[in-house]
């Protein structure tokens, strides 16, 4: 019986089968950030002689609130700094950092076939590389730093087969939201989502990361996509990757890593990628979304609607928004910023709009292309990299009762600020909504004079 890609990666990392359905799973790389690492690090220091299994397997990043916003967050960053220095752990810090799920791939720390964990649920982003990457709590992360292993019960595997090709303005974000709406907000619980099919193979690495990033939003342990030439091309020349023959040898091994032709899955879902349209969330979990041209479903959860101040049957394009946010580990890579800039170019925002790049490297790349001018000419705020308002921590937290259209990943009650409301969408939809002052898409915008649309100063 053939194996899925996930099973192959899993099987290679089993140190020992444990009672119940558990296994001791070897972890190749631990990603450590300032919000969830100090607790486990301090426990190891206090109870286990400060002994880490292998500091070279750990990469540390000050990312959530960087630079610090107050004394408490400054202490978190400082604890991570001092700890990383003491153990010789590579730290990405102010000036050279970004959101860990963006920095780790852009520096080449993730490879096909690896296992990675981090005290952060969106670690599933890295499954885009054919790695088994999962979010865990601080104690489990402490365990992974102490023993380079996790205790995990073996997840089942759900094949998410996406045929056709994304088009009609649909992006990887729309695919991610459509998958969650299709399998349900908790439908992935207990599963790894193994994405296959022509629509998946056609995605760039940045798009694959957007898709895998939201696997957790269905409750799934993680998502995973088979490595291919796109993966190899992305990793070639990255900071932590070797060059020349050594890289080529790695690439050869990566390309051999794939599901068997006769692989069996615990369950499968099929989605026609060509039929996907741009969507926006209307409710209080990422499974509650609908096409932007549509209406709120008649059977929508009344609790969600009450919180959101909306009614069943209401046209999504009639919903006025108070703030727009383009950022987060879901949609703040260079291609996302380019997509947003395409919409902003030559136009003006109608509401406060914040554009936050996923890393300082993304920021610099965007500025080399002049995207920062496009955002600022449109009246948006262009910030340094941070998790920012996505989780209501800093740099754009929203007021109670207000509504933010966001390229981030969670629309839970209070997520971006106490009693605030969030609508999730792709960067292009967020940008169009920022200009319209309501939920809307780029095709609703007035056409620009030809000179302006080409970016030529009038």
């Amino acid at each position: 019986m053939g194996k899925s890609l996930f099973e192959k990666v899993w099987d290679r990392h089993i140190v020992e089968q444990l009672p119940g359905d558990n296994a001791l799973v070897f972890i190749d790389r631990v990603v450590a950030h300032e919000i969830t690492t100090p607790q486990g690090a301090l426990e190891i220091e206090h109870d286990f002689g400060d002994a880490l299994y292998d500091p070279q397997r750990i990469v540390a990043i000050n990312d959530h609130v960087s630079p610090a916003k107050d004394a408490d967050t400054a202490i978190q960053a400082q604890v991570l700094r001092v700890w990383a220095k003491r153990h010789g752990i590579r730290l990405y810090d102010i000036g050279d950092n970004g959101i860990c799920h963006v920095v780790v791939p852009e520096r080449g720390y993730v490879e096909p076939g690896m296992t990675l964990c981090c005290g952060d649920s969106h670690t599933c982003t890295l499954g885009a590389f054919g790695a088994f990457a999962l979010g865990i709590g601080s104690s489990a992360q402490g365990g992974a730093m102490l023993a380079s292993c996790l205790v995990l019960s073996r997840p089942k595997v759900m094949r998410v087969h996406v045929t056709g090709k994304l088009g009609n303005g649909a992006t990887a974000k729309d695919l991610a939201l459509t998958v969650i709406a299709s399998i349900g907000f908790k439908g992935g619980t207990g599963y790894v989502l193994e994405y296959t099919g022509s629509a998946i193979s056609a995605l760039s690495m940045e798009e694959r990361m957007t898709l895998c990033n939201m696997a957790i939003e269905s409750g799934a342990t993680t998502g995973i996509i088979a490595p291919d030439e796109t993966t190899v091309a992305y990793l070639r020349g990255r900071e932590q990757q070797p060059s020349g023959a050594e890289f080529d040898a790695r690439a050869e091994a990566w390309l051999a890593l794939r599901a068997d032709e006769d692989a069996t899955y615990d369950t499968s879902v099929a989605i026609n990628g060509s039929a996907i349209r741009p969507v926006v969330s209307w409710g209080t979990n990422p499974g509650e979304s609908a096409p932007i041209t549509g209406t709120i479903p008649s059977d929508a959860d009344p609790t969600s609607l009450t919180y959101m101040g909306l009614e069943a049957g209401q046209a999504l394009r009639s919903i006025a928004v108070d703030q727009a946010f383009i950022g987060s580990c879901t949609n703040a890579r260079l291609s996302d910023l380019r997509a947003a800039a395409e919409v902003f170019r030559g136009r003006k925002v109608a509401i406060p709009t914040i554009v936050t790049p996923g890393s300082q490297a993304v920021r610099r790349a965007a500025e080399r292309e002049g995207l920062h001018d496009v955002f600022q000419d449109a009246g948006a705020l262009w910030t340094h990299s941070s998790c920012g308002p996505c989780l209501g921590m800093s740099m754009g937290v929203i007021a109670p009762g207000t509504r933010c259209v966001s390229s981030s990943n969670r629309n839970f009650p209070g997520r971006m600020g106490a009693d605030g409301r969030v609508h999730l969408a792709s960067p292009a939809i967020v940008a169009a909504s920022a200009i319209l002052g309501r939920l809307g898409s780029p095709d609703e915008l007035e056409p620009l004079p030809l000179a302006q649309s080409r970016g030529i100063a009038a």
Partner: protein
Amino acid sequence: MIISGSILALDRANIDTDQIIPARYLTGITKSGLGQYLFTGLPDGPGLLATKPGARILVTRENFGCGSSREHAAWALVDHGFQAVIAPSFARIFHENAYNNALTPIVLSDELIELALRAKSATIDVEQETLSLDGGAPLSFSLDPLRKQFILGGGFMRYLASKIPTIRAWEIASSQ
């Protein structure tokens, strides 16, 4: 290990960890002192908690603890005095975090959850995997046999530490 006390019923599904403890309170470096922030992200959360100040056992609906991996959710529940959470299902990361903090996570059928939501108190025998609602007949439940030992026997980190020689040997063998 016996857990006995009054029940707080949270009759809602899909309570995510942002509602259990919002990110604005994740600015510490230790696991302690978070009980004061418990359920401050839940509409009416603090008011609900005030109705049962000494509750030891939380009963809620499916998919409890979904979303962010923040273990602060488990720490806040424990710091507030909760020793067990009863639900039809838990999100994976919260489920693991609960075991790692001796916050006994008990899965009951939807039918039994209806009874538990209406009960005033419960007595839970973690070792025997039984619970009694309002002094009634014992009901059985199942815990993960390994993670149960993390609750009863000194914790997850000590268990992993004991495995380090095995792990080092495996790593050497698998790299050859």
